[in-house]
Structures are given as structure tokens and as C-alpha cells.
């Protein structure tokens, strides 16, 4: 295992990361077959272990609603470890996106109703925030008033991360001229959920069809979109940490192979062509780690994610995973193109995270504006 001189973690977080790693190493399979094993897309036993033995989903939830009351930064080592083994789970969707969204947008009653079960791991939540931009027939999801504080949702949405398994769905829907966020039970009548085909088998996405599905508003109708934007910054930081972890595992795997594989009478890692490839992988991983660390400190300082720090961290981490996934395949050679080898799982993850929270071109556009290099 390589150390990260640029993360500068506290002893508590290092200890947490160690505990997560032991648990995941023990229970998470690296076999390709196991990715697609269950319709849920994740192993609920491991999720329960993470919730009960370590309290992961409770960490960034306040104590008065059943949480532990740590900061979101304390979760980043967890995301990094989960990314390392490509642990498919509601970690990103529920802990990284839905929970911050509830905390930002929900009224007190809804927060008190939803957060304790999320904290204990008894339920998970997913956010349906996107209409399929390539599907022109999709008219999205519409809400109409169905009674006092009651609404009914109809329509179609796609790409809901862990939307098939989530107990609670937070759904972006049009309400007259507004776009608001609604809470829908996973078991609600009229809701049809189907898993989508995905390039990344270690993370499940679903399409949702609503046929007059009962729903309530998450909070005020008008603040929903703004809260969603801010919640996505939390998710972006989580995804950056997760991708850094996945990239680091690619590096480690390449280095292990370069030490053990012998050709021309010596380990291939002795050849500069190979060792320099590994050194560049290390550089990309540590760069991402340094920027995630910087964004993490900015979050601690300001209490909310800094869009500039977070966007830069996400771009660097997605780049690092892209680079390390392909370079690791190059170090491994032909074996990495087989189904049995884990390399393609990281390559698949790399392809997926490029667009998971919107295409990187949009994040780069946003950072261009935030950086101030473009005066407009």
C-alpha cells in the first residue's frame, strides 16, 4: 500500500479509513460476476455492516435526528476506500447526494421523518435529478396537486443512481412554472422502476416511470433547485474522493504486477518504460489527493463545499482515474483485457464517472467561470 503524503489526514480519519478498508477487503469481491449479481446492484449485508459497526451513513447527520454529527469531510476517507474496491452501494447516492439534499432543503418535519432511518442504515435514498437529455420523447416528471400537501407525479425519468433499490426517492418534477423536489416512497403505487444497462457494472442506475404516484414536497417548492445545486457539490466532492481511491488501486495493482512479472530476465518494473508509467500514475493520484484534501479543508473552513475547490478536485480525480485505469491496463498487458481480471472494472468506472454528475466539459466550463480567467 502506498502512502499519501499530500492528504495529511488526522489520526482519527486514518484510523477510520483503516477500519473501512479491513471491512471492505473482507467482504467485497473483486470478481466481475459479482457486480451484476443482484437486482439491487449492491450487497445489503455489507451496507448493514458499514452502518452498524462503523456508523457510516450517520456520520454527517446531526445528533438530534439520529446521526453522529461529524462533518462531511470526515466521510471522504470512506468514499476513497469504497472507490478503491469499487464497492457498489448507496454510499454516493444516499450518503453523498440525497442526505445533503435533505439537510439543505427539507422542512423540519420531513427531515425528522427521513434522516433517522437513513442514519441507521434502515433505509436509503436516491435523487432523480435528471431527465434523459438524449431522449427527446421524454417530457420529464410533472406534479399536480392531489390534496392538502399531497401531490401526484406522472412522467418518466432516467439515470437515477441506485434508484432501483432506494427506499426513498427525491424526485425533481415540474409544478406549474416551478421545478420542485418531491419525496416518493420506493414502494408507492404507480411507480415502475427498471435497472438500466450500464457501462459500469459496479454502480446501478435506474429509470423511473410515474403513473399518478403519491408524493409530498421535500421542503419549500421554490428553494429546491438551488438546494439541489449545492447538494451536487457535496456529491462532486464525494465522487472526487471515490475516484481518487479507485485510481490509487489501479496504481497499486500496476506496481504489484510490475514487481512480480518477469520478462527479459528481470521484473518489468525495472525498465524505465514501465517504472516511469507508474511514476506518472502516482503523480496523477497524488495530485488528485492533494486537491481533494484542499477541497476538504475549504469545506471545513466555510461549512459548505467551495465550488471552486470542489470542481477542481473532481476534474483532477476523474482525470487521475481515467489515466490510471488505462495505464494500469498497459502495464498489465493482454491479461487486463480479460473478463476475469479486475482492470476492466476500473476502466468501466472511469468511463462512467466522466459523465455521472454531468459531462466533464460542463465542470470545466464552470471552473473557467469560477477561476476568473474569463472576465465574462
Amino acid at each position: 500500500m502506498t502512502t499519501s503524503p499530500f492528504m495529511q489526514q488526522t489520526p482519527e480519519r486514518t484510523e477510520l479509513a483503516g477500519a473501512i478498508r479491513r471491512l471492505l477487503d473482507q467482504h467485497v469481491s473483486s470478481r466481475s460476476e459479482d457486480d451484476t449479481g443482484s437486482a439491487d446492484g449492491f450487497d445489503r449485508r455489507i451496507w448493514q455492516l458499514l452502518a452498524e459497526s462503523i456508523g457510516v451513513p450517520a456520520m454527517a447527520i446531526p445528533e438530534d435526528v439520529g446521526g453522529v454529527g461529524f462533518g462531511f469531510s470526515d466521510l471522504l476517507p470512506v468514499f476513497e476506500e469504497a472507490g478503491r474496491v469499487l464497492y457498489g452501494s448507496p454510499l454516493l447516492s444516499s450518503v453523498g447526494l440525497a442526505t445533503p439534499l435533505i439537510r439543505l432543503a427539507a422542512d423540519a418535519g420531513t427531515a425528522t421523518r427521513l434522516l433517522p432511518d437513513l442514519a441507521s442504515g434502515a433505509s436509503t435514498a436516491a435523487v432523480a435529478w435528471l431527465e434523459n437529455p438524449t431522449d427527446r420523447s421524454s417530457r420529464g416528471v410533472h406534479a399536480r396537486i392531489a390534496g392538502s400537501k399531497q401531490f401526484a407525479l406522472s412522467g418518466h425519468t432516467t439515470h437515477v443512481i441506485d434508484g432501483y433499490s432506494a427506499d426513498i426517492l427525491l424526485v425533481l418534477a415540474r409544478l406549474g412554472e416551478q421545478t420542485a423536489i418531491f419525496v416518493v416512497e420506493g414502494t408507492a403505487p404507480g411507480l415502475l422502476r427498471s435497472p438500466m444497462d450500464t457501462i459500469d457494472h459496479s454502480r446501478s442506475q435506474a429509470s423511473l416511470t410515474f403513473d399518478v404516484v403519491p408524493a409530498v414536497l421535500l421542503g419549500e417548492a421554490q428553494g429546491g433547485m438551488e438546494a439541489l445545486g449545492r447538494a451536487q457539490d457535496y456529491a462532486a466532492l464525494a465522487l472526487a474522493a471515490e475516484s481518487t481511491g479507485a485510481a490509487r488501486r489501479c496504481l497499486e495493482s500496476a506496481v504489484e504486477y510490475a514487481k512480480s512479472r518477469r520478462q527479459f530476465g528481470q521484473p518489468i518494473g525495472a525498465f524505465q518504460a514501465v517504472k516511469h508509467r507508474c511514476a506518472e500514475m502516482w503523480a496523477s493520484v497524488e495530485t488528485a489527493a492533494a486537491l481533494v484534501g484542499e477541497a476538504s479543508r475549504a469545506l471545513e473552513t466555510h461549512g459548505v463545499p467551495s465550488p471552486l475547490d470542489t470542481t477542481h478536485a473532481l476534474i483532477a480525480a476523474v482525470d487521475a482515474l481515467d489515466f490510471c485505469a488505462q495505464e494500469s491496463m498497459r502495464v498489465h498487458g493482454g491479461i487486463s483485457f480479460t473478463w476475469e481480471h479486475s482492470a476492466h472494472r476500473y476502466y468501466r468506472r472511469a468511463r462512467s464517472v466522466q459523465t455521472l454528475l454531468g459531462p466533464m466539459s460542463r465542470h470545466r466550463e464552470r471552473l473557467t467561470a469560477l477561476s476568473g480567467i474569463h472576465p465574462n
Partner: protein
Amino acid sequence: MIQRPDLEDFRTQAREFFAREVPAVLHGVDAPVDRARAVRGALHRAGFSGVSIPEYAGGRGLSADHEDIVTDEATTLAVTADRPAFLGVNVILPALIDVGAAELVAEVGPRILSADAIACQLFSEPDAGSDLAGVMTRATEVDGGWRVQGQKVWTSYAHLADFGLALVRTDPEAPKHSGLTMLLIDMNAPGVTVRPIKQMTGDGEFNEVFLDNVFVRADRLVGTVGGGWKVAGTVLGHERLAISRSGGVGVRNPISVRELVDLVTRHDTISVPDVQSSLLDAWMGERTAAILSRQTTVQARSGLPLGPETSLGKMHRTRNAFRNARLATEFGLPCGGAWIGDEYAGTAYEILNSPGMAFGGGTDDIQRNIVAERILGLPREQAVDPRDRRTAVGHQSSSQSTGKAGEQ
């Protein structure tokens, strides 16, 4: 930037000094060595030279925070003029202090801190570049000291220098890394010949140095006989720290994003999407290098040794240098890089100066070796040099030839 109320007076004084004193003492002074002496002498008299260097060495004995304030407040005018003194003040003297050469430090410290003496670093040789431990310059023990014979190269400011910290071979029979010793050579002694090397910019900052039977007094030994490699490591550690601390100034730097934005603004091309995309890459590269350098400084400040991971900042700086030079050409130079008058000469100079960053402190390929062997634990390439094989039993590694400080 450090902000501490108790230091604000000090900051104000420093700011005043750089705003008023420096332009005054440099007025009408042309020769580089005179400018260095003028500005460094003024710094010394005002108490801003060697701020965190102990008093016995001629410094002020103040905190690292004080030192940072002077670095923060230093103007480009002062930094540029001070360049010949930079290495002595920030790298060589601190290394001598670390090594414990107390008497030598007491003698040369005040001279270095006032630029009464300029110091240079005699490390690389024509046949010992990346493989620094292969230096062949011989020092033979004689009555009262040593006689030194050999040739050094890439020595910054040797033509102005009074002292040269020289890595020499005292025991040709010993394993490669343990036959080395560090000596402080008097650059004005008989037998020292300095020949300038014209750089691709047209400047002459580097030199070849020929050492022909040069006598070095016994009390000029730095560290122990046979301990030269260890001293070289100390020097390189101070170099990394000095570069990271100086941040945007003091050493050769990539063309800044601010300059690139100025060029784009002047030519009104900011609305071109590809221009924006390139600027963003440059901006991210510059920010990354700044964050890494700050973390390195924090680490060094907390007393942790600067390890091989400092190579990361160096790798980014090199990448930034080449990228930004390409972009400055794209954004700022006319068709085919030809112009009339002197409007573009400054930009062209910076473009041509940029590649120098790839070599000072060790080439990129050496950085990659360092990372791969010392951090990732990959095996060394099989040595073909028999002297390397002899040391393979120890824990020396080829990647410990980490490049040379005063050569950038």
C-alpha cells in the same frame, strides 16, 4: 500569506524597505554582481537578510514566519537583482549550519548574508549529471589541506562567486557514494578557471569551472571525509525548501496565468472556446503547483524531512513551464514568431527561458526514477557501472542522484 498581529510591524517595515530602499540602492547600478551586492547589502543593514538564520552565522535569529514575511513582501525588482546571492543565502549557508560546520559558518555567514561573498555550487560534471555520485573531480590530501583537480559544469554564477561548495572524490577505491567529500573552495584561488556557457536565451548564468591543482585549506572541510554524499542530500533538501518557499519568485518560474490572460486580453481572443480551455489547463496547473508547494513548506516547517514526494511539485512545474510557453506563443507572438521593434522581445525571452525548468533540480526522468524506486518500491534498473554494483549491497540507489541545486 501569514497574518499575525504581532508580526504586522515587521511586515510594514519590510514593505517600506522594498518600496523605498531597494529602488534607491539599485539606481544607476548596472553590473549583476554590483546589483546583488547593493540589494543584499541593503537587506543586511536593514536586518532583512538571513532573518531566520542564527545570530552566530550573521543572521537575525528570528522565526520562520518572519522569514516568510520578507519573502512575501520582496518585490520583483529586489528578487531579480538578488539572484546571484539567492543560492548562498537560501541553500548553501543553511546547509552549512545543518552540517554543523560552526567555525566555517561564523566566518562565511556574514559575508554571504551581505553578498560580500557570492557562493556557488560545484556539483555536476561533464560525465556526472543525473548520475551525480559519479563525480570524478579528485581531492588529494596534502600538508594542511587538499589539492583539487577536475572539472565542473552548469555552475550558476560561478563567474561572480567567491566560494564554491564542491562535491569531490577523496577515495577512488571506496564504493561510489562513500568516496565523496564536500569542500568549500575559494573561487579566487590560483588554479580556478571559470568559462561562461551561453544559454539559449543568450544569457550567461551558467559556467564551466576548471580546477587545476587548487589548494583547499583543511578547515574548509564540510561534514566528514567520505561524508560528502550526505551533505549533498542536505543541500538538495534546502534547495527544495527554498524553491517551494520562494513560490512565485526567486527561481526560474513558468510563465504565469496572469501573463497568459493579459496576452489573450490584448489580442481579444478570450471568446474562442479552445483559448478558454487552454487557459483553464494552465490555471489548474498553476494552482496545483501552488498548493503542493504550500504543503511542502508546511511539512518542512513542522520538522518532517522533505522526502522524494517533493518530486511531484517539480513535475508539475516542468509541465506548466512547457505548456505555458506554448500558450504564450499561441496567444502572444505574431505569425511564425517574427516581429519588428521590441514589443515582443520580453515574451519571446520568457518563452525561451522556460525549458530551463526541466533540468534544474534533476530532469523529469530522474524525478520519475525517484518516485518509482523510493516511493513505489520498484526495482532499480540493472547497473552496468561496476562501481554501482559494488554499492548495490548497501541501500544506495541510483535515484539518489537527484540533480543539482544551483543549476537552474
